[in-house]
């Protein structure tokens, strides 16, 4: 239940941030969404069993290792893409359509 609520809150936060006009905030939104899905992957494997999967532990008590491998892979991929997005967020001219029009930009001329 707590896991489901956490996933819900993370997705809500992600949706809120992604609707923002600033690209940087959208990137943060994607980070939250990625975490939500990682938790979902964990939940898919069941969270009651927590024993070590190898080493002769009783299969009924051992954790499912596959979702853990999924999450690890997903984290690495999301990390790489986040960096690409962060680079894209600071590349470009001032006044392109990623700036927030209501608030003055902190750096009028973004560094290249």
């Amino acid at each position, binding site marked *: 239940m707590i896991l489901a609520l956490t996933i819900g809150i993370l997705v809500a936060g992600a949706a809120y941030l*992604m609707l923002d006009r600033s*690209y940087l905030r*959208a990137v943060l939104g*994607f980070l939250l*969404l*990625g975490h939500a*899905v990682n938790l*979902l*992957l964990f*939940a*898919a*494997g069941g969270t009651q069993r927590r024993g070590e999967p190898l080493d002769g532990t009783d299969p009924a008590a051992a954790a499912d290792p*596959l*979702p853990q491998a*999924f999450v690890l*892979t*997903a984290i690495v*991929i*999301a990390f*790489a*893409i986040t960096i*690409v*997005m962060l680079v*894209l*967020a600071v*590349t*470009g*001219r001032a006044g*392109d*359509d*990623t700036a927030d029009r209501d608030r003055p930009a902190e750096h009028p001329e973004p560094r290249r």
Partner: protein
Amino acid sequence: MTAAVLLPLLVGLPLGAAGLTAPARAGALWARVVLLVLLGANLLAGIALVVATSGGEVLAEPVGAWPAGIAIPFAADALAALMLTVTGLLALVCAAFGLMTGPGAARLFPPLVLALVGGVNGALLTADLFNLFVFIEVMLLPSYGLLVLARRRQGTMRAVNGTRLYVAFNLFVSTVFLAGVALVYGSAGTVNLGELAGAAQESGTVAAAVGICLAALSMKAAVVPVHGWLARAYPSTSPAVTALFSGLHTKVAIYAIYRIYAVVFDGEARWLWIGVLLFSATMLVGVLGAVGENTMRSILAFHMVSQIGYILLGVALFTPLGLAAGIFYLLHHMIVKASLFLSTGAVEERHGTGELGGIRGVARRDPLLVAAFGVAALSLAGIPPFSGFVAKLTLILAALDAGQVAAAVVAIVVSLLTLLSMIKIWNALVRSPEEDGGPAGGGVAVAAPAVPAVGIRLTLPSLVLAAVTLGLGLGAELLYGLSATAAAGLLDTGGYVEAVLR
């Protein structure tokens, strides 16, 4: 059996070569040779696979020799082999075009293309949902790099804007797909396509979970209502890269939709009406979007959306004729679309603009190029001697056969509208230099004669692909036979499942 051991090489070799060529200096000859030789070998391997699977055989390899159920298998049936061949052909032709134009001068062009091809091959071969996600990411990451490799002087900022959209959209869709995979694992306890066979028919929960995966793949394939990203992102990069992406990216998603629906849903008829509805709307919206555009590549990008509707209509019919027609259409479309992007890209390369109003006298300087465009455009619209005619005719017959009269009518109307905007580009290409440049627009008329001819080197790639579509139109029997074999493999997935689980 023995040949299947080589399947992982289709992924490993391009990825390895990408690492090898990464330190090469800009324009290094050896890196270019490695790129073209490997892409050529990739094409030959695809053809060999088509020959090996043409009788309906399935080659499968449990990578790492793990027992069935634990191994993450690669499997190639007739459909995967055909896709590998055509993507191989496009990668080779587009890379050659790219080397001759803007992006080829960049240092990282060869490794990025090689990594892209490795990812595409992996996504086509894998028989595991999570591995499909990984390979789609392997395919997308180099694409982000390629997107920004527009020419330095102009268009870099435009490319950055397009890339922002493209990266954000793809990350979102991939995350949705991953969530779908998590739900599939949670409800079915496996993500292996072999073990999932027919699972969606038995359990509604699994059907809903796989439905999320299919929805994510449909977004990646630019199905209406989520098609706007394609029309905006594709025209913003360099022509060679647009051509490459048009052939590889959305088509991998389409392939995955065909595969997953056939294996996991086992062709369940209950949900097909959703597909018929969505894909008919895709056809119509795409072609209408093209009417309002006035640069060559954005017209073509909208047409791509429209054609994706045709291709996916095949899977939404799920009859032997419909599937074969859809697969034939998919292969034909990849070739024709790349040819159109390359011929208009060559013009854009010389003129520095893709605006219809900014092009003068191409037909006089480069009759061959205009001929290549004409052939591909007629093929796209579905005029007889070319492959598009066979594709459209069989698809419309299949729709009528399945009782989907409305979809067939939409397909016919959209064909006519396709011809309309192809004529728009054609008019711009054949316009003579003197025409309507006279009294009012003096400045334009003076600049026009300075444009050099495109030349045979840049014409050749699109000409080759135009020749292929003519060949496939005249010799449609061969490809149609192969498509029918592939369709049979989708209708009866027993052989595929058995090979994957061996």
